[in-house]
């Protein structure tokens, strides 16, 4: 069973993502900020990280670098309310850039793609 690390400062969103992705059959850990997420990443092996960008303390772009610095094979999906970070070249290092939406279809699909379980509906 794949294990996801979802980093978001919004408690409600962590709850939603945990619920939704567990339904999808993943093990889900969540972290409220990048610092804690990096700490968890030290002790636990994850198959994929979903990273919010705008967070108090270390932001997602910086955290992306740190995650990749520890494991450059780890798939990271940026999930942000902003699309403006798309242009930031650091975000190019991420596997996908998904704008937050109530409809989680796109995010779920990108996670599957990144984990090599593509089941493209179209």
């Amino acid at each position, binding site marked *: 069973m794949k294990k996801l690390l979802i980093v978001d400062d*919004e408690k*409600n*969103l962590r709850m*939603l993502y945990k*619920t*939704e992705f567990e*339904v999808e059959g993943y093990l889900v850990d969540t972290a409220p900020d990048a610092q804690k997420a990096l700490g968890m990443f030290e002790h636990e092996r994850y198959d994929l990280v979903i990273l919010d960008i*705008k967070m108090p303390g270390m932001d997602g772009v910086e955290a992306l670098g740190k995650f990749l610095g520890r494991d450059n094979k780890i798939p990271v999906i940026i999930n942000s*309310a*902003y*699309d*403006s970070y798309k*242009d930031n070249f650091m975000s190019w290092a991420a596997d996908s850039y998904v*704008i*937050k*939406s*109530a*409809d*989680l279809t796109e995010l779920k699909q990108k996670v599957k793609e990144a984990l090599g379980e593509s089941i493209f509906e179209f």
Partner: protein
Amino acid sequence: MVTLIKDKETLLRLVLQTSSEALVLLDPAGTILGASLKLTELLNTDWQHLAGKPFTHVAPTELNAARLCPPLPGKRRLTVVDSAGSRIHSLWEFMPWSAGTGSADETLTAAYMKHWYGGPESGRDSFLDEAVHEFLTDSLPLGVMVTDRSGKVVLYNNCQERITGIPADQVLGSTLFSGYASHAPDEIKRKFWQALKEPVDMSLHEFDYTDRQGVTRRFRGRISSLIGPDGVIHGAVQTLEDVSRPAQLQQEIDRTRGFLTRLLETTPNPIFTTDMRGRLTFSNKAADEMLSLHEQTAQGPVTAGDIFLGGEREAGQIIQYLAERQGSVENYETYINCGNNTEVPASLAMSYLYDQDGNPEGVISIVQILARERKLESEIQRNEHYLATFIQNSPDAVIVLDEQARVKTWNQGAANMFSRTREEMVGQTLDGLVPPEEQAIDTSRLGRVEFNSDGKLKHYTTELVNARGERLVVEATSTELSERFNGVSGRLIIFRDVTLRNRLEEILKENLAELSRINEISEALLTSKDLDETLGIILIGVTASQGLGFNRAFLLLIDHEDQVLAGKLAIGPSDASEAGRIWNEIHSRYNTLRELFEAYKQSGLDRDSHVNRVVRNLRFPLNDRDNPLITALLEKKSLNIVNGVSMGVLSPELAEQLSSDTLAVVPIVCEYRSVGLLLADNMINRRPIDEEAVSKLRMFANLASQTIERSRLYHSLEEKIQALNTTYRELKESRDKLVRAERLSALGQLAAHVAHEIRNPLVSIGGFARNLVRELAEDDPAREKIDVIIEETDRLERYLNDTLTYMRHNNPVFRPEDPNRLVHDTFKMMDAELEESRVKIVDQLMPDPPEVELDADQIRQVLLNLFRNALEAMPGGGTLTVRSALEGNAFILSVADTGVGIGEQERDKLFAAFFTTKTTGSGLGLTICSQIIRNHRGVISVDSEHGPGTVFHITLPVNQAAIREAEHEEIADRR
């Protein structure tokens, strides 16, 4: 009778004895009856010896041709002889003589010997006697008075008469000192009476005598007794001379001598005299000092040879000079030996001194020491020379007139001015200088010039003529010359020739008139902006009589397109009759150029006139270098062509075209470039064109060029103003856009912030709603309510996406795309919506369109937006038509609906942000479309005028690189 005869003899003897005349009495037979004492004394004989002898005894017949017997009355020359036989030439007068009342035979003849003269030293000379008597009485400059023994005056000569002032007839016969000269001094009286009693010889008396006129004079008298040969005193003689005059003379002489002596002694000029042998006879003080004579005389007599440096030889030469030059030599320059081995230069004036007989007896020499004099003299000479040079070389005529107004001095200036030499004019009056028709007036004028009572200079301008009859305008001044001016008396007249100045003044006046004319033309030109009108004004200026007065004027301009010099405009009559009519009309209607121009501006030129037809036919290729007009044009030179055909300057064809071969040609030069020609001629009146007219014409050509240049500048100015206006408008738009962009940016940041803040809760709400609905049973009544939540969060999320896309300033990423496929893809994305809408899609896209460089995502969004708008505009169904077309680099895509359409006011705001007519929607859709299309360097426009419905046109460049290049060029052009 005897008694009578005896008495007669006695009477005769008495008569003959007492007569003072020399006479004889002759009887009719020529016998001498008796002779007077005077005659017997003359013939040195006596009465007795002559009586009874024939008259021929006295006047022998062999010496006298005249018949003397009988004696006839009359005058005759006879030679008589005395007792010694000496001849006496004499003049006799025979006249009948009657002693009383005797009978006829008693008639006698008296022969008087009137005048006579004998041989030399005979003492017989009646003329001399008479002269002596006459001298004594009339000419003797000594008063003589003789009395007889009784003191009765018997002789009283004229001189005595003059001295005493008493006429002779009052004195003769009266007794001295009783009836005459009773006031004489007692000494005189006493002496006189003494002289009558005892012999007195030359007793001398001087006395003052006051005559009847009250004039006192001094007399010197001498009184002598008259003692006869018998030793008896017969009377007394007194001589008298007026010595008052000689006394005065003596005083005068003494005074003059004193004066001369003082003069000689005090004069600074050394003066000395020498005798004819050169010996010094006199020297004045100055001469003594100069010659150191005190030392020299001590060494013996001084001679002229000692005085002159040249010695005796020079002294001899001087005497010779004097003899040659009538005894007078002046300015003889030499050196004078002053003793002590010093010499001084001197100028001498020398003259003979004459003795009483008028023979030269000496020489007087007056010395001028030049060492002192020379400087002064040379200065005077220099000044005189300056003055003379000044007068001679003065360009003014300097003329001196004598008192009769005749020329005395006539300098070179006068000679030059009047072309009359000094020799011609000296002694003449100035009448010859006065213009003939002004004789009377001008003489008085000339007079007025000189007559200035205070003798001051007076200017007067008048006209005179020179010898060639040319008129001169002269300024005259005249001055009275007084005697002290070196003996010149009369009037000094100076004429200054101001002819040229006057002429210049006239020219100046003419030029001023010229300028004002040009000014009028310039004014007319300035008030006109139309090129054709201004060129017309120039041609009028050339032809108007108040302007240059040419008959005709042509204007030719270069046509650069056709490379020809083409006739543009002309003015002038076609023939003499038309000329007369037009000129009369103009003359009667317009007084000034200004009026003419005003009239022209209102009515314009007659463009169909003969000359305008002529000028429009004039087209000369610019490469025809044989055409003199082209040469003048290209070389920018003026021509004054006179009889051009016969002179070989103009071709007959050209002359025929112009209908003239005598004309002036001037180039019109604009900024060093010929732009055309101005031609003018006098075809009608054939007046010759002089160089001045050509140069004036050139001036008009300059006006023309300025006008053309001005007009060109005016047009370019208008263009520039238009460009500026456009730029201004664009600038204003840009500024509006900028303001709008700034406002949007501020709003946008706020909106973005709000959007993101909203997005997270939306995701939670929407996410959990979807999570919930999945867990609900199909028929759960709560499902419908949760769907509402999902729907609404979706709507909000879409709204946020639109807003955020608008905020995003992403540059499009261009890739060649098939526009048709893009449209079809978009339709595909909208399948569900289209099915619901009951709208029919009409595809009129062009087949096989070129690939267009575009950002497919962005354009898809635009299309999506437009299609959705169209569907929303047709809620009850309709037709959506897509069309495409290609125009060069522009690909045009049109989206048309059959909906409600858009109002005009709304159309303007259609693309503005946050504008919407819909109840739902962000109001950003079309704004985003517009921005995307702009980023693609394309245009989006809306057309909603024709009928219901709306058409959006999107124009996109097929090739982005090409349009970018074009933009760069445009920017570069603007700069």
